[in-house]
């Protein structure tokens, strides 16, 4: 297959060290290369990205949120690290995820933050809903090397919890209602994936054909239950194959590559939690800047996480068990919230550091931050902490606080937000999950 310089290669160069003038004519190339008429093709301009960062166990509600707009926006203490970024910020108060109320007070509110679906209580037959990021990945991900990056910090929790498999405490990204996407937690493994081994992959082409043949040979002779598992296998192989077909025949150098923007991390995860998180966020930013992907999620902690934040206040012990502390709430817990917001600000600043023509990668992204509960102590699921940052290529008016608390129920649904964003990303459908309408005022 031969193809002209596609946009992926072009964009790859756009980074801190090198700023290329934005060429409108390039905007459609990426779409041509995959043969689909999609969002990127219609809307001329830099690619639109979506990221979601998830913090488990809720916030300290008293110290969370903001008031006012523009320069007058006042951030409460947990959000203070966003002060220099507030013109890029949208603080959404009072949204809620109705289905989070239809199951376990904790674990049934987390895996569905990006789908708004009911979490089926089961230790085996997991089912939530396809998450918004994976829907995006399926529709716009085809234009980049990776449809999406699904990242995490903690390994999955083993075991079961109150009749739910602990897998539910893991990924917020689900590629189908039944398939959680495994998270990449190791910075080095992520780096290696991003830098890639196109030669190895190209050699694998014939292998992929063979294994698909194997799987298809098995399909007609097994039960419907088995078929579901094997379909998942086939779909995964197909995705790799598609990625492979997007590999350029030859390296086309137009700018810095991933390996020129960052040193290969150590194979071991960094011993410090903060370093680990920052490194993962750096790599996510680079993946966006090099247009390796346009969709990413990162979970700072698993639901019910007992992550140890004792380092936030050395000498004190109160921060050593995140979930435990979430029940107590208060200023100590807010300190943990604030730490996560610092990480959020870190990512935003990184994205701001990569120019794209007159704009920055942040300007062309929508970076969401959320948690599953409004307060850990009361397991309050009647509202959800949600922040957005980035203008998403002039489609979002940032620097505002939007409050929906008093709006009618159907206007407060979390999925309304995704419905609204679906329009901005020019997805096929502008309805999502249990959305009643696109979110107002956004």
């Amino acid at each position, binding site marked *: 297959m031969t193809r002209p310089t596609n946009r992926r290669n072009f964009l790859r160069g756009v980074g801190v060290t090198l700023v290329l003038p934005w060429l409108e004519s390039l905007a459609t190339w990426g779409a041509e290369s995959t043969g689909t008429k999609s969002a990127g093709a219609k809307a001329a301009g830099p690619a639109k990205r979506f990221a979601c960062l998830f913090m488990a166990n809720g916030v300290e509600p008293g110290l969370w949120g903001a008031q006012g707009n523009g320069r007058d926006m006042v951030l409460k203490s947990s959000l203070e690290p966003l002060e220099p970024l507030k013109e890029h910020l949208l603080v959404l108060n009072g949204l809620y995820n109705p289905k989070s109320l239809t199951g376990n007070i904790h674990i049934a509110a987390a895996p569905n933050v990006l789908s708004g679906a009911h979490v089926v209580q089961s230790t*085996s037959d997991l089912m939530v809903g396809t998450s918004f990021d994976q829907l995006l990945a399926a529709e716009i991900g085809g234009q980049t090397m990776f449809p999406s990056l699904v990242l995490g910090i903690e390994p999955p929790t083993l075991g079961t919890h109150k009749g739910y498999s602990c897998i539910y405490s893991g990924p917020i990204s689900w590629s189908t*209602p039944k398939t959680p996407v495994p998270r*990449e937690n190791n910075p080095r493994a992520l780096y290696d994936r991003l830098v890639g081994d196109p030669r190895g992959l190209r050699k694998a082409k014939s292998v992929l054909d063979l294994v698909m043949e194997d799987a298809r040979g098995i399909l007609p002779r097994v039960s419907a239950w088995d078929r579901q598992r094997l379909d998942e296998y086939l779909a995964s192989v197909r995705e790799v194959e598609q990625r492979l077909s997007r590999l350029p025949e030859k390296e086309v150098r137009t700018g810095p590559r991933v390996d020129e923007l960052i040193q290969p991390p150590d194979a071991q995860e960094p011993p410090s939690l903060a370093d680990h998180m920052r490194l993962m966020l750096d790599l996510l930013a680079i993946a966006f800047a090099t247009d390796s992907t346009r969709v990413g999620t990162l979970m700072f902690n698993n639901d019910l996480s*007992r992550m140890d934040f004792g380092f936030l206040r050395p000498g004190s012990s109160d921060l050593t068990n995140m979930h435990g502390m979430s029940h*107590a709430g208060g200023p100590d817990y807010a300190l943990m919230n604030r730490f996560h917001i610092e990480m959020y600000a870190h990512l935003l600043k990184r994205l701001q550091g990569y120019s794209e023509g007159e704009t920055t990668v942040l300007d062309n992204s929508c970076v969401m931050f959320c948690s599953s509960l409004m307060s850990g102590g009361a397991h309050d699921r009647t509202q959800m902490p949600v922040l957005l940052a980035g203008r998403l290529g002039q489609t979002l008016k940032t620097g505002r606080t939007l409050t929906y608390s008093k709006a009618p129920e159907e206007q407060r649904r979390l999925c309304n937000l995704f419905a609204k964003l679906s329009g901005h990303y020019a997805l096929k459908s502008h309805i999502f999950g249990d959305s009643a309408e696109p979110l107002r005022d956004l």
Partner: protein
Amino acid sequence: MVIAAAICAHAAPPDFDRTVQPLLERHCHSCHNAKVRKGDVDLTSLSTAAKMTSDTARLQTLLEVVSEGFMPPKDAPRPLSATDRKLVVDWMQDQLEREARSQAGDPGRVVVRRLTNAELNYTLTDLTGLTLDWTKDFPRDGSGGEGFSNTGQTLQISAGQIEKYLGLAQRLAASAVVFPASGPAFTESPAPQSEWARLALERLDAFCSQQAVEYVDATPPEQLMSYAYPVGKGPKLDFTAKGLRGYKGYSNARPGDPLQFLLTSHRLFYRNERLCPSPLTFAVPQGAIKKIRGREPTTDEVRQWERLWLDLRHTTGYARPFKVSLLQRWFSFQSYSLGDNPEFEERIKQWKGKPLDLQKDLSFTVMSLAKYIGEIRAFTPAELRDYMNIQNSRDGESTGTMVPNHDAFDAFLQNSLSDAQLESLWRMACDAESALAKRLQSVPPAAMQDEWRSLDAQQQVWQRQVRDACRKSLCEFSARAWRRPLSDTETAGVHARFDQAIAESQTLAEAVQSSIVHLFVSPHFLYRIERGIESAPKPAAHLRGLTDFELASRLSYFLWSSQPDTALLEAAAKGELSDPAKRVAQARRMLRDPRIRRLANEMFGQWLGFYRFDEFSRPDPERFAEFDADLRKAMHGEAVEFCTDLVANDRDVRSLLNADYAFLPTRKLAEHYGMTDLGETKTDPWTTFKPGEPAGVVTAPRVSLAHTPRRGLLGWGSVLTTTSHPLRTSPVLRGNWILADLLGIPTPPPPNAVPELPQDEKNGDGLTIGQLLARHRENTACSVCHVRIDPLGIALENFDPIGRFRTRDLNGTPINSSSRLVDDRPLDGIRGLIAYLNEEKQQQLFVRRLCRKLLGYSLGRSVLPGDNQLLAEMEKKLQSNDGRFSTIIEAIVSSPQFVFLKLEPAAPAKREGQP
């Protein structure tokens, strides 16, 4: 407990609509309605018997909660009288009983299971013989079912994982040494092809020395020598008794033993770690084994020898060593005429210690030849220096004596020249018109040229043999990797792809390596696919018997987390595994194999929480600096060793609760536990330790706990640490763990807005954790569960957050480990707790829990009502069998659940999209 009791109750069960429903309405609905949904439970929606029983797992939970007295809570506005409670419990039990009876032995829904990362690791270890963490950077598996990562339904796969599998397969292929006849062998990092011949030789060598092979002495030693040395040029060897010892390199040879002679003599050609296989190695004719350990060799042994033989032939380039030998012989004969070069000798005289310009001085003996070879291929100075074999005097000055180094020259011909270069060298030598022949003033005699031609013919035969062997061994290896024989279509596919690769001018090695990549990414390898066979006898139409090979994998993945071994595959091939007695015999054999540690680690580890404990890092590193990597590892080992011993030595399963011994991998751990007196023996058990019976399975010394308060698993460091917070113990975590994980009594979720205890014992406002908990229990919403949880945890307060025995807490307050059980009996310390847990009821609950866990683990699914009968049987058999662990395993591998596959229901239950 309750179900067993109910079997005896024959009275007519109460009616739901008239008796049970009104009671539920009266006592439960005020909290558990659609609006309040306390504890996530809405009973108003379950208004009919049918609705109530639609989900047996839920009904089971309800039964446990009501029968255990959790619900309704003590402070409920309308307490449930004992009579009424019995009515509700009886009805629920009866319903569950019916359900269980109607489904008894139902295999349930066991889906194709992807190998877990752990299983993949173990499988590759057993397949390649290399112990590596192959899945280090793979996404970790979650878990489901009975809480195990091997639950089929929760073993998802994604594109990212496919890439990892692909990368792993490519890595494996690259590190595969391709032995055409005996199949691929794996090295930790890719071995260069030049090393393969050495590996092949070592394998042959190992086979010969292990088996004490004797050969037909077909070739007279003098003739063997002639392959290595020009006539009259070799060392003078006396092939009788002492002669061999006289020559260095022969020192290991036993006099008069032709094999030893051969094996030792080929070692002569290891020089500077480089190998030059000598034709000597090949001088023993194929199939010429005379005796093995003094007896006639078996067909298998002959076949293995022939395979190793063919492998060596291939890796050394077929006739190549012989051709090299021919060339070498010819040129050595001629070396004197080549050496006749006055100009060069003049330069040597002037040289005396000055660096020699090797490129200019190509003109002495072998060097003269090198000049002609130089027309074919350029030399490196190092190569030249080797062949020159300049013999320096002690002070580093050249003595001017230059002796052609035949061995090094031979090595050069063998290792550095391509086949084509060798051929053209020979052509030059035979072509009277070539510069080389003119210089030598002769060509090889006709006999030598004939020999060369016959080698060519021989080579073609060998090549064909090797290629056929390769296709065959590739199929054998595929069958091994896929854990079953290949179908005819699959065999044809392997052949076709191999032939195609060869046709596309890939080398044999490349062709095999690309096949290997496919093998390891294929669903046949990554998944355990069970299709069963229709013809097998079966108890019901919707069932299908598993094939023998599928049973082999069920056994091996259950007990070893890995592929079946040769014995299992052989039994499967003979159709023995469908015979329950033989299946049990295999399981018994497997329980005593060292691989059984994996059951200890995977099953017991995931259940009892010590899985990956060697990576556990919750305790605060500053407060508990003692909790270092060594200690973690030792605590992990302690648990693994105990369970391994339990399983391999078929002990009473109740010893988990009451054993007065432990397996302590290190002295440090014993000291950590405060054990200064190590029991009966005065000698240090760690220095005198020898792995006991069964051989090599248990790898730590057994130490008596008689003089300590520790008993059973509650004394394990891993258990005490995983159930603590970073800076304090947690009687709640410990108590809940005992209640829920050991005894299987579910506790409802905590109510909203629960005040949290301080995270550090030192910050407890002067109150002990026990006192704080007592305050907590004053809250009635909390007390429902905590009156049951806390006493069990408080009893363990004498153990600190990293499992040390203590009498004072971190505030310095004396420990009070006594409290009252929910039935108001006093419970004091670990001794009291151990006694309590070893009461009949608790023991029974624990044993049931273990059986349930093992069954769920063995099948990779949740335990279903249809399993109750089997579980009850296991418990019964355990009672009459001193609680021996193997009882459970035998019951499982003999059960219909283990040997049958359930076909999909006619109308698959559509539960998708359920709100």
